[in-house]
């Protein structure tokens, strides 16, 4: 007897159950850290949404109007994300997933396979949106003293709302996989990621959120929201979902927009299923063909490596690491969203018109230098856990080459360190210097931040390389390596280190700043304390760097015994 499509989802459920039953070292720690972060985020979202809703409730009809627009805007924000997420997830679930090799060879009807894959795609693409949206909607309901029916309405509105954009995204993937002459699916991913990164920047430029910060504009928030409305807004599922929820909040129901949501979701699913039946096998077949891969010779890497004063061993290790990284589009592609976020970060601060608050602008600008230092530290930690920490694990099944060759583990690990350090220092220095330049930070703090960032980068790259060697996971996907026990341990240590550094650098900087603001000279004892604090920061960084590297080398040496 043919089983219904949910049967095809069973291996994932069984796998999760087995994973939970047979926990590995660090699983509980990782789950509790991620769980705590999740609870904190949910709590913050709930509190923020609750506060905003109660404030709006104080404005009677005007508040209702803003709440209605806000709900529509909330859904609109998630609409583009869901469509993009649908494209990327469908590429994986419909075309690149390993288990397709098993399922496509089995007598599973196209319709069943589609339903199982689409269910998985919707789940994977939307869980994060639902995670963010749920506490907000619950908070809106609680703050508005909504009836229980509101929560049921919310659940019934969210389901078709997430299905529609994900179906559009999956349809785009189906089309692109069949149409693009270059069948390499990763190129597709690159294209969509670039588009998404560009879309974020453009959207934020278009919305110009900094206008809200202008004092003369503050009462005119309605104008801001009105700019988000356009003639096509009522045609968007985000508008329908907002209307359905708003009606639910008022204790009524909006059957028209509810029906629009459900019928559109069903129609899109049916159309996508038909398109899938017609084109999926052709697309899948194309996606697994292994044509001659485009090889970029990257001669410049060889040229640069030869120009550097390196031993042959270190030069070859460097060339190999750089070429492998640059040729693996899926690796460096993951930097794009990070760059987009950093650009937004810089843009937002550039756009802040602090001169309008003259009595504060000087202090805020200079405090910003410290905030920026912390931000640079977190960027380094994030990039390091994803790209530097897995450096040893990335050797994978080819690590025997290094272990059987006359290369010391010390040489090997230090090569990994320098390969990770150089781009990281360049990136963080550019980030820190340009951000402080934008803000017009005082020269003294500019120098402090620029020097501190160098020390922090040395320490965190060393920590990542060292812990990566202590806790390698050969053969695992770099994302899995980053999320492993060692990766989580690195993040905890890195965050602690950043916090200590901010204190050690921030405290003397604050002393200097206040002496300037209040125009009193620094005493010799205070200057000495400042120097001690800076020296402690430098000492901590150097110790973190060298101890981590030594520990990593020792771990690799012990592996050979």
């Amino acid at each position, binding site marked *: *007897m*043919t*089983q219904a499509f949910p*049967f*095809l989802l*069973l*291996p994932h459920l*069984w*796998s*999760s159950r*087995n*994973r939970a039953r*047979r926990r590995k070292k660090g699983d509980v720690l990782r789950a509790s850290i991620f769980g705590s972060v999740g609870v904190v985020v949910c709590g913050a979202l709930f509190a923020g949404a609750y506060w905003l809703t109660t404030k709006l409730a104080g404005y009677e009809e005007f508040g209702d109007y803003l709440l209605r627009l806000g709900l529509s805007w909330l859904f609109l924000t998630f609409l583009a994300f869901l469509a993009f997420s649908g494209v990327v997830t469908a590429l994986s679930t419909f075309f690149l997933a*390993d*288990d397709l*090799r*098993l*399922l*496509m*060879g*089995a*007598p*599973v*009807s196209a319709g069943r396979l589609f339903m199982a894959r689409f269910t998985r795609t919707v789940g994977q693409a939307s869980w994060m949106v639902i995670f963010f949206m749920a506490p907000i909607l619950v908070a809106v309901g609680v703050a508005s003293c909504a009836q229980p029916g509101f929560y049921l309405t919310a659940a019934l509105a969210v389901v078709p709302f997430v299905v529609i954009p994900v179906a559009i995204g999956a349809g785009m993937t189906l089309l692109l996989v069949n149409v693009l002459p270059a069948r390499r699916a990763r190129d597709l991913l690159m294209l969509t990621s670039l588009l998404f990164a560009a879309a974020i920047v453009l959207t934020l430029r278009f919305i110009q959120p900094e206008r809200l910060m202008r004092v003369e504009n503050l009462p005119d928030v309605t104008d801001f929201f009105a700019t988000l409305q356009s003639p096509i807004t009522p045609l968007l599922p985000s508008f329908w979902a907002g209307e359905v929820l708003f009606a639910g909040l008022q204790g009524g129901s909006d059957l028209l927009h509810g029906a629009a949501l459900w019928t559109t979701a069903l129609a899109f699913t049916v159309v996508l299923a038909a398109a899938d039946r017609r084109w999926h*096998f*052709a697309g899948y*077949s194309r996606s*697994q*063909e292994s*044509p*001659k891969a485009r090889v970029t010779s990257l001669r410049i890497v060889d040229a640069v490596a030869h120009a550097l004063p390196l031993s042959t061993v270190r030069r070859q290790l460097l060339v190999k690491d750089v070429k492998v990284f640059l040729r693996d589009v899926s690796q460096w592609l993951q930097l794009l969203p990070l760059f987009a976020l950093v650009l937004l970060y810089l843009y937002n601060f550039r756009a802040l018109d602090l001169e309008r608050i003259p009595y504060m602008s000087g202090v805020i600008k200079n405090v910003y230098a410290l905030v920026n230092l912390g931000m640079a530290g977190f960027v380094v930690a994030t990039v390091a856990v994803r790209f530097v920490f897995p450096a040893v694990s990335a050797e994978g099944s080819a690590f025997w080459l290094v272990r059987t060759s006359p290369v010391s583990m010390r040489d090997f690990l230090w090569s990994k360190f320098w390969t990770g350090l150089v781009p990281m220092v360049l990136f963080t220095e550019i980030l820190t210097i340009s951000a402080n330049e934008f803000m017009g930070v005082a020269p003294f703090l500019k120098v402090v931040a620029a020097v501190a960032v160098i020390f922090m980068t040395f320490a965190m790259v060393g920590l990542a390389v060292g812990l990566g060697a202590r806790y390698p996971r050969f053969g695992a996907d770099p994302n899995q390596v980053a999320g492993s026990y060692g990766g989580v341990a690195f993040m905890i240590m890195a965050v602690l280190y950043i916090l200590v550094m901010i204190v050690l650098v921030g405290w003397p900087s604050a002393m200097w700043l206040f002496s300037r603001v209040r125009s009193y000279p620094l005493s010799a004892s205070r200057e000495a304390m400042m120097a001690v604090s800076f020296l402690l920061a430098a000492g901590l960084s150097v110790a973190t760097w060298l101890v981590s590297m030594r520990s990593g080398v020792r771990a690799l040496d012990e592996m050979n015994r």
Partner: protein
Amino acid sequence: MIAIEELVKQYGGFTAVDGVSLDVKPGEIHGFLGPNGAGKTTTLRMIAGLLQPTSGRVVVNGHDLAREPEAAKTSLGFIPDRPFIYEKLTAGEFLTFHGGLYGIDGDGISDRVHEMLDLFELRRWENELIESFSHGMKQRLVMSAAFLHRPRAVCVDEPMVGLDPRGARLIKDVFRRMSERGVAILMSTHTLEVAQEMCHRVSIILRGRIIATGTVDEVRRMAGDGDDELTSVFLRLTGGSGLQEIDEIV
């Protein structure tokens, strides 16, 4: 039982499989031989329904794969060279799921799973996660999955790779027993001794084309020497040993 007619697969301008036709009768073990990159795996993946042919036809147990894919796949067991297995499932769970894919469920599946685990000497590991299995154990698990639904035809890509002598012997015995029961087996292999020992007929593919088909004796005669080992015949048909060049380099 497995019939392919004028099968072609092109990747852009490159033709990987160029008009291959084969007919594997019920009870026949058919060796599919050829050097690396000759088109063996591509052909088998098209028969299994994993790759779309550019042109040509695949028929399994009388069902056209393009028109009746589910019926054709129900009759077929496929053992790929690089199989996918859910690493976080136990052997028992994997086989139960696999049986479900082929419509075997209810009370019957448990007995059948145990039969296959016994046959392939994996019963002790029924409740162990597959990720802890050795390569040979995984290979045997994939074979038990392929035979679980009692297929009428089997396509197998490099079955002996990574198996110890005991495992290899087991697989050979299973294939022989299946063949005696009328199962058609199309087996790609580089191990020419295995082909010589087990196959009723062999086909040799080179650059996407079948260059010789017949019994091992018939193929020997085609190569011009009736007494040679299959290895020599294979090398002669596919382009020499290259030993002279090796001597020059070494």
